[in-house]
């Protein structure tokens, strides 16, 4: 009588026929060991599992029902122990067989060509002007500067008069202003926002103002009727021209590189006194011999100065008590210098090929 057959019979009967539990489980174990004496395929592993651990027809279910549950009271501890030992080993072997089969299956899968590209995913570009802006803001924010934008449609007062442009002065013409029908205008610089902030807040003030500005300029590679300006200003009781120099030197080193040096040249703006233009040592050549700096070794990058007392007064601040500095520049130009863009009009065409370089 095969051991499989014996599992279908109550243990009491088998004992009466001369079997004993140790011997029965020994035979069963021997059968199991025969079943898994060779390496098993995934399919054989499944068959092994069904034959031994199947819930209804598995051999261990059978012994559980016919041997363990049916055992006389005094044999139960012995049979239980033998049943558990065998079950533990069968489960371990079945698990091991399954794992081995899974490994085998993974190994059998074809290899990947890891040199093929992944499917196209677009991560959007940041516009170069915005990229330059973010860089500038990252420099000024830790210095305690707030950020504002202000309206683009402005009045003559804020764009010129309050900024100390004499009403009949050529400096107004030089701005090439675009006017609206009612005499309002498109701001030619971000400075009007300086006045608006000084009017509504009290010193100490530290602000970066940025946004679109407009000039009646025919578009070409270096002119655009709309472009972006950024200006920073600080007003307090003891801000000096030396502070302006220190702030801007820090700024250009951070933006253009640590070796950058700034040169302050006296200049003229109606809204600052003293006024200066800032040239930086050319970041693109070491010997002052490149096209970008026109063989001078210097590039003019921004205008600045101490805020004219008339401007402070026009904004309602007492120039006997407060003073400050202001500096402004074209973000487009900064972006063009930094990212090697040779035509400002590329900024405003929306050409995907251009923009994607800034992803």
């Amino acid at each position, binding site marked *: 009588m095969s051991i499989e057959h014996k599992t279908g019979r109550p243990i009491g009967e088998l004992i009466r026929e001369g079997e004993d539990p140790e011997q029965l489980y020994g035979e069963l174990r021997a059968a199991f060991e025969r079943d898994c004496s060779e390496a098993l395929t995934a399919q054989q592993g499944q068959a092994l599992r069904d034959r031994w651990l199947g819930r209804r027809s598995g051999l261990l279910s059978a012994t559980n029902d016919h041997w363990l549950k049916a055992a006389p009271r005094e044999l139960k501890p012995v049979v239980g122990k033998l049943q558990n030992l065998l079950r533990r080993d069968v489960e371990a072997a079945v698990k091991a067989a399954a794992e081995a089969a899974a490994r085998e299956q993974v190994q059998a899968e074809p290899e990947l060509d890891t040199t093929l590209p992944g*499917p196209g995913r677009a991560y959007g570009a940041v516009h170069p002007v915005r990229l330059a802006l973010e860089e500038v803001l990252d420099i000024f924010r830790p210095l305690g500067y707030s950020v504002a934008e202000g309206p*683009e*449609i402005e009045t003559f007062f804020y764009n010129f008069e309050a900024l100390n442009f004499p009403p009949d002065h050529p400096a107004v013409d030089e701005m090439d202003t675009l006017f*609206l029908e009612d005499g309002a205008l498109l701001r030619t610089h971000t400075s009007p926002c300086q006045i608006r902030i000084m009017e509504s807040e009290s010193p100490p003030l530290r602000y970066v103002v940025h946004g679109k500005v407009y000039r009646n300029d025919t578009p070409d590679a270096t002119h655009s009727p709309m472009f972006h300006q950024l200006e920073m200003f600080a007003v307090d009781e003891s801000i000096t021209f030396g502070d302006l120099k220190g702030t801007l030197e820090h700024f250009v080193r951070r933006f253009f590189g640590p070796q950058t040096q700034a040169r302050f040249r006296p200049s003229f703006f109606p809204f600052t006194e003293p006024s200066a233009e800032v040239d930086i040592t050319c970041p693109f050549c070491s010997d002052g011999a490149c096209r970008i700096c026109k063989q001078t070794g210097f590039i003019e990058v921004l205008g600045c100065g101490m805020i004219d007392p008339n401007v402070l007064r026009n904004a309602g601040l007492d120039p006997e008590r407060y*003073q400050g500095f202001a500096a402004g520049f074209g973000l487009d130009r900064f972006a063009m210098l930094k990212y090697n863009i040779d035509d400002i009009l590329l900024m405003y065409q929306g050409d995907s090929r251009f923009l994607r370089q800034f992803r």
Partner: protein
Amino acid sequence: MRILLSWLRDFVEIKESPRELADALTMAGMAVDAVESEAGETVFEFDITSNRPDAMNHFGMAREVAAIYRRPLRAPSTACAESGPPAASKASVAIQDPDGCVRYVGRVFTDVEARPSPDWMRRRLELCGIRSINNLADLTNYVLLEIGQPTHAFDLDRLAGAAIVVRRARHGETLVTLDGEERDLTDGHLTICDAERPVALAGVMGGQASEITAETRNVLLEAAWFRPSVIRNAARGFKLFTEASHRFERGADWNAAPRAADRIAALLARTGLGRVLPGQVDCFPQQPRLSLIRLERTHIRRHLGIQVDDAEVEGILSALGFEPSSDKSGWSVPAVSHRLDVERGIDLIEEVARIHGFANIPATLPLVGAAPEPTPQAAEDARMRAAVRGLGYDETIGFAFISSDEAGRFGSDDPVSLRNPLSQLWDVMRNSAVPTMVRALEWNLRRNQPFVRLAEFGRVYRRSEASYEEPGVLTLGATGTARQASWAEPAREVGFYDIKADIAVLLAPFLANAPSIVTEGVPTYYRKKHAAGLRSDGELLAWFGELDPELARERKIRQPVWVAEIFLDKVYGKGLRRPTHGKLAKVPAVSRDFSLLVPDAIDFASITEAVGEMPDLDSVEPAEVFRGKNVPDGSYSLLLRVWWQRLDESLTDEEVNEFAAELRSRLQSRLGITTRT
């Protein structure tokens, strides 16, 4: 402005090389654009700021050199042999508008011969870019370049009554200027007249009738000071910009007028081209008052951050032609007529600073005295920008101007028009950002771009009650494939639901509940029934959809393009939603599929609405939507997948069966739809 090194040397000693001098002047605020060598002569090309008319000539520039190196300055010689009757007996000058003309100096020359100017003078003029004309014209140009005073020579014999009257023109008077144009004059124009009529447009251009000719023998020379605003208005009015108007409108020096007249007389006498009658006819009714400027010693430190030695301050100011007198706390400095731009202590501080050298002011950093103000809506904007990027839209920026035609088709508000637009394509401020985006899409399609995703953060412009509003708008544009095509995935065209999904992602951080879809009132530049809006709490947040194919075709766009407008002022106004954590379910959700045949008239929103609220209902999803084969016309087949979930315990089969039965019954009773499974 071209300046000759040799001419500067007439007035100041220069030991430095041209390059060194150029650098020194540049660093003092006289920007040298180029140093050139022409015919053995060094020529500097200057870019002189509009506040410094005093330096737009050789003597003025020499004064700068003298100040920088603290060297003596020599004035041009005005020594002159005079003979004959006094000038005043041969010509008269009267100023009837002393506000417009502050000073008028006349000089009379007789026996003038029309001969070429001497070579040295012609050479200097030509190196400065001025063509030699005749001896008198050359003289006036020479002195203009030398000391900056514009002058004008009249043929005295052609001046009625040998008289000069400076007055406003009378209505109806005309003047043929030297360029041959007949000018209609009004009382806004300051004119130089003879006893009868206008003979020159003051400070701008002379008249043809009194022009110097080869026959001219007797000359009246004018050296005057005109009010800058008067000259500016005339020059602008006639669009007539001359060397003279350029200087007068920036401000000349009334004390230079007699010197210029004398200098021309001296040069005329020296070159033997005529006789100089004794004396000037100097009409100077009222010397303008110049202020006494106060310069406090402490203010120098307060503005510059450094103390400058008293001797240095006085040395600089004296070299620039000021006469400072010192006292305990600083200096009193009378303003000077050659530097009308210097009126206040701060102006003097600037003079001290620029000559002392900005480079000699040490760089410092100000102490932070203010906590930065948070930028309004910065967090909202940062979140939106990050999401737009993540969805693969490339940020673009377009011009804020569009054409009035575009404004009419795309905008609902009356556009804000420009008075002096650059072109008809850009004649109004945009009242919609869609045309800007359409232009960009068109640009890319013309360049065969198969995958285009653009986003613009910008503004639109409109009138408000008091002034203007510039609300922010985010515009999206998409055309071509849904993803960048690749070997790994089949190419698929982008469509309405791609855009809708993107907008859902963009709005999610701002909204507690999903926005409702708006199908009424969609703007007509969208394709009918292929566009919609989104609304939340009664506010319209976005329009999106396919651009009207008719509009697209007009722009030579031959494939569907998708645009969206997200009204950022409304969206950001809601603020970022503060996320709150709810309970997570301990057991998985259970789903059932329902196969429905739905008449076209019933949209998906009606179906979810009909399902309505149910206990433990988690979500209702359209798993499949199918039209065509085996589906009768006028209907579509919808596989509805419904999920139920209870947080703490599993739902039993019986419970889910009950839910499913209830759902079927609702669809049946509310919409008449029979479920097939």
